């Protein structure tokens, strides 16, 4: 539920994958099939000739180097910048505020409720339940509006729908305290602590 650019990731991975796959298959064909080699010679020599001509025609006046190399370097630098930006997009989206609204009451100013309120209140409410091995609550920013993610780690054998219904009651209480409807996702998961911990026998 963070703001990782899922579609962009898939598109870029597909493009890079196709490119590498094509290059690899070409190399294998060159190594194994003689006809492929002769076709490659004809095509690549022509292409390289054209590129060479381009470099020759763009020399600095009076010097052997072409200014096209600077363009290439700048283009590659831009590509590096884009890659850094792409990495920086992964896994963002944590938020601090649960609600921030103008208060129309007598006191001038805004009302802001931090995400810690919901996190601490829910953690306190879920603490000490015998059917839970652990619970975490985090606030996320989903397209500009805050949302809560409640991750529950029930012990073995706990019925997930009953647990979800009970936690949902807690969330309703929280909403009436905050005075605002917050989108909530409950994730009932399993981890090492539930796998090797004791099973819940009595409820």
């Amino acid at each position, binding site marked *: 539920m963070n703001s990782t650019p899922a579609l962009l990731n898939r598109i870029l991975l597909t493009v890079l994958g196709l490119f590498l796959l094509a290059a690899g298959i070409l190399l294998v064909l060159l190594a194994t099939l003689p006809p492929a080699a002769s076709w490659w010679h004809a095509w690549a020599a022509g292409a390289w000739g054209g590129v060479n001509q381009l470099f020759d025609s763009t020399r600095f006046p009076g010097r052997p180097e072409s200014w096209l190399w600077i363009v290439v370097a700048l283009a590659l630098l831009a590509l590096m910048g884009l890659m850094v930006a792409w990495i920086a997009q992964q896994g963002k989206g944590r938020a601090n505020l649960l609600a921030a609204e103008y208060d129309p009451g007598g006191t001038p100013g805004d009302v802001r409720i931090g995400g810690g309120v919901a996190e601490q209140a829910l953690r306190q409410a879920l603490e000490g339940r015998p059917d839970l091995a652990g619970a975490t609550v985090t606030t996320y920013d989903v397209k500009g509006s805050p949302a809560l993610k409640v991750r529950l780690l029930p012990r073995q054998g706990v*019925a997930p*729908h009953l647990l979800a219904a009970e936690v949902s009651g807690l969330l309703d209480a929280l909403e009436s305290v905050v005075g605002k409807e917050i989108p909530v996702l*409950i994730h009932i998961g399993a981890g090492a602590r539930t796998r090797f911990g004791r099973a819940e026998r009595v409820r």
Partner: protein
Amino acid sequence: MSSSVENREMDSGTRRSDRPDMRRITYRETHSSRAAVSVAAAILVLVLAAYGVLESGVHAVGQPAWLIEPQVAAQRIVDLPAGISPLLLAVIGAVLAMLGLIFLLNGVLPGKRARHLLAGGRGERLPAVVVDDEVIASSLARRARLAANVTPEQVMVVVSQRQVLVNVRPTSGVPVDQDAVLAAVQDELDRMMLEPVPVARVNVTASGVIGA
């Protein structure tokens, strides 16, 4: 504040997960993210581009190349099957194609996680709930164990996207009613109301366990 409470009561008939941003959130929770592979791909491109910047920059100012002159490298690529042993060339090609295939499949495959959505009953208004298949399996195993009257070690439940398989090994000499186990598991599944709905099957093994 009061107006938002009224709004909440007005739209209480519709389920919360019907809203578009909730659908996006649940999609993200039930499909694996490509963040790690994306970072690896970006670093790969980054390293190659950094080398390219170095060589072309060095070339542009007329200095000798660091590893190989770009024009010499291009000429070698044009001459390719010559100048390198075919075995090495084929191996390099195979490795590149393999890497490309990994990236391509990561980009194209659906990447569903072993999780189900919980729909919630008519009366109760559940928020979006995502459950790991492991939790569903352990809950069903508990129910099947009680219905079959065996120990936890004798029941194994496998939950996949559209199928639930319950394996029961009866205690030797004590028959297990397959239909009763199936009814119990089906009842538990009906209460959970998973999305997508899996089909339950019970498999009682022919050989029993002694001394359980």
